[in-house]
């Protein structure tokens, strides 16, 4: 008689299929299926060179220029020598180590967290790694995807493996139906507000429940992208019919009978009933409202209908101090209605919210309207950019008075020089509202693409549902 095996979760199955060996002290050596590298990987490559080593599996490594590429005037030569060096280093490392490269002029270039899934390089059931914390995005396909630092990048380059300790498992269940106008971004900001920016430290998150199941792949990517904003290194959604249909036919995905075989394996990754989780969190999807951040941490999120918090009314001393400091930095006053916060600029872009669905949602608000403030729209990938242009979305943005830029990380990390001026306030579709994130002294309010568009048209933060 066969003994029935204990129920396994999605993460358990991914872990089991990637452990090469386990040391006595508990560290496990993990196989890496995809290693993406960007311009910032130069430290990692330097370590490989210093040891006179080779890249173990250039066939599983993909280099893409996204952090330092210009969004404006890409056809002209770059002038900043430091930025030029960042681009040149990546190209030299790709060339010297035999790694395929998508440079800024390649039609498949874009932000890797958009491009990987879009091209079918990222697949369900894979371990996906990059020296970038938003690698968690790829978990939307049912992959185990997480960001690492430069030393770990060098280790993956040299061995295609990584030492890991097994994370704890958290299941975040969002049930019910999202109200019209509510997006994955609102869901993510609500979850981070509930857990706090440290709530996910040490955990791998599986997002589940009917509201998550009903999200498109784009929405699931937004949700998984922001896992790191509550401290979790990875977030994932079990593969289902939505996943399979998304992956089918993509250039790097298996084709024909091989695809059918793969799809069978992928669907089997879903968590078994009664799979164990160290922590479970439940939310009612129907209660999620348009959500924005007011402060300098992604956990500083509130309904747009709310008021800026008052540090005097916060019982926790550390939190109260944070609120006071954040209000000072953001130039806001306690108790101020959030909908009265006037903005100077907007940004629509980033690995969080610049897929075609995001651009369509923003364009639907801008159609026939003007933006009261300047702003930049940068598609998540060059393919998304071309698609949007075919649909005429670029004209809607430019007629509203916005700039239509090329694809890259742009004003999310401001590494390429796209940034706000000190004291300027932006509504932004990005993932971090840290001090100085969008330039020294910048003030960032995070929200969904449609909410950013609504704020642009109104000139201040506003509930997108007031627009018809």
């Amino acid at each position, binding site marked *: 008689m066969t003994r029935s095996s204990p129920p396994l979760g999605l993460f358990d199955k991914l872990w089991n299929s990637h452990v090469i060996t386990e040391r006595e002290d508990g560290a496990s050596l993990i196989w890496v299926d995809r290693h993406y590298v960007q311009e910032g990987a130069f430290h990692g490559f330097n370590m490989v060179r210093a040891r006179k080593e080779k890249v173990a599996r250039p066939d599983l490594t993909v280099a893409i220029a996204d952090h330092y590429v210009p969004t404006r005037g890409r056809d002209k030569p770059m002038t900043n020598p430091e930025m030029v060096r960042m681009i040149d280093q990546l190209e030299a490392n790709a060339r010297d180590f035999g790694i395929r490269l998508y440079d800024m002029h390649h039609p498949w270039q874009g932000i890797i967290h958009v491009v990987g899934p879009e091209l079918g390089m990222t697949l369900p059931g894979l371990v996906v790694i990059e020296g970038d914390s938003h690698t968690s995005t790829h978990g939307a396909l049912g992959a185990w995807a997480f960001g690492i630092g430069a030393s770990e990048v060098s280790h993956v380059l040299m061995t295609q493996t990584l030492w890991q300790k097994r994370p704890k498992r958290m299941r975040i269940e969002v049930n019910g139906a999202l109200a019209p106008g509510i997006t994955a971004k609102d869901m993510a900001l609500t979850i981070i507000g509930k857990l706090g920016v440290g709530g996910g*430290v040490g955990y791998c998150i599986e997002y589940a429940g009917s509201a998550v199941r009903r999200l498109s792949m784009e929405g699931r990517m937004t949700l998984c992208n922001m896992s790191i904003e509550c401290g979790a290194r990875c977030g994932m959604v079990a593969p289902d019919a939505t996943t399979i249909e998304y992956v089918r036919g993509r250039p790097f995905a298996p084709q024909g009978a091989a695809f059918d075989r793969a799809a069978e394996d992928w669907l089997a990754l879903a968590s078994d009933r009664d799979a164990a989780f160290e922590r479970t969190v439940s939310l009612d999807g129907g209660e999620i409202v348009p959500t924005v951040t007011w402060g300098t941490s992604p956990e500083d999120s509130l309904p747009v209908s709310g008021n800026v918090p008052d540090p005097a009314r916060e019982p926790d001393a*550390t939190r109260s101090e944070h609120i006071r400091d954040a209000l000072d930095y953001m130039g806001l006053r306690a108790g101020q209605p959030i909908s009265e916060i006037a903005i100077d600029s907007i940004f629509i872009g980033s690995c969080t919210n610049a897929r075609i669905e995001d651009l369509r949602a923003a364009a639907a608000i801008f159609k026939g309207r003007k933006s009261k403030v300047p702003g930049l729209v940068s598609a998540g990938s060059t393919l998304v950019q071309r698609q949007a242009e075919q649909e005429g979305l670029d004209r809607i943005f430019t007629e509203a008075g916005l700039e239509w830029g090329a694809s890259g990380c742009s004003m999310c990390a401001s590494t390429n020089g796209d940034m706000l001026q000190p004291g300027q306030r932006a509504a932004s579709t990005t993932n971090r509202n*840290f001090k100085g994130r969008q330039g020294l002294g910048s003030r960032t309010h995070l929200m969904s693409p449609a909410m950013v568009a609504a704020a642009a048209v109104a000139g201040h933060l506003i509930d997108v549902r007031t627009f018809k």
Partner: protein
Amino acid sequence: MKPFTMMRAIAAAMPQANIDTDQVIPARLMRRPRTTPEGYAPYLFHDMRRIAGDVLDPAFPLNAPINNGAAIIAARRNFGCGSSREAAVYALVDSGIRCVIAPSHGDIFSANSVNNGLLPARVDEAQMETLLGLLERGGVEVEVDLQECKIKVGNRQFDFQIDPVWRTKLLKGWDDIDMTRRFAEDITAFTAADAAKRPWARLPGDDELRSSSPQT
């Protein structure tokens, strides 16, 4: 890597929660090479320690002369959250910081720290408040003993936690690559078995691609 066993140095108190790696080193400074003698030291807390323009804030703990030579930072929960940039750890170690004591640290920051010989020591929240209180006046020497997992300040003693894998790695100064090379046979065996189990996991070469006009 140099083994870490015990250290004694001034600990600077930064009593804030969620000090993210963008504060430790702003992104715009990360395109600089680290090959100069001072490395990334000039960029540590670059914007956080300045008031306006290039004026240093005298109230910032690491700017205070009394904390000169500090090699330990004590902070509130979730130190090093946010971006995976190892440059944050470079800025710390290039400035001589070898230990960050906090109730918790960002996961990626912790891993990066251990890979650079910096100890992320976890002290429970209530104990941390006591410790921060002791350090408040500045210039206070602290002893950190990784063998015993103890922190000593004068006659006061605190326990700290660190993942046992990381503790061993720091104590022995292990290098991950050398360690991994010892498992070369296991890796070869794994890849052979895996190719049969998950044939779909390989990444086709550009020349094998069928479609040239992918959908978004």
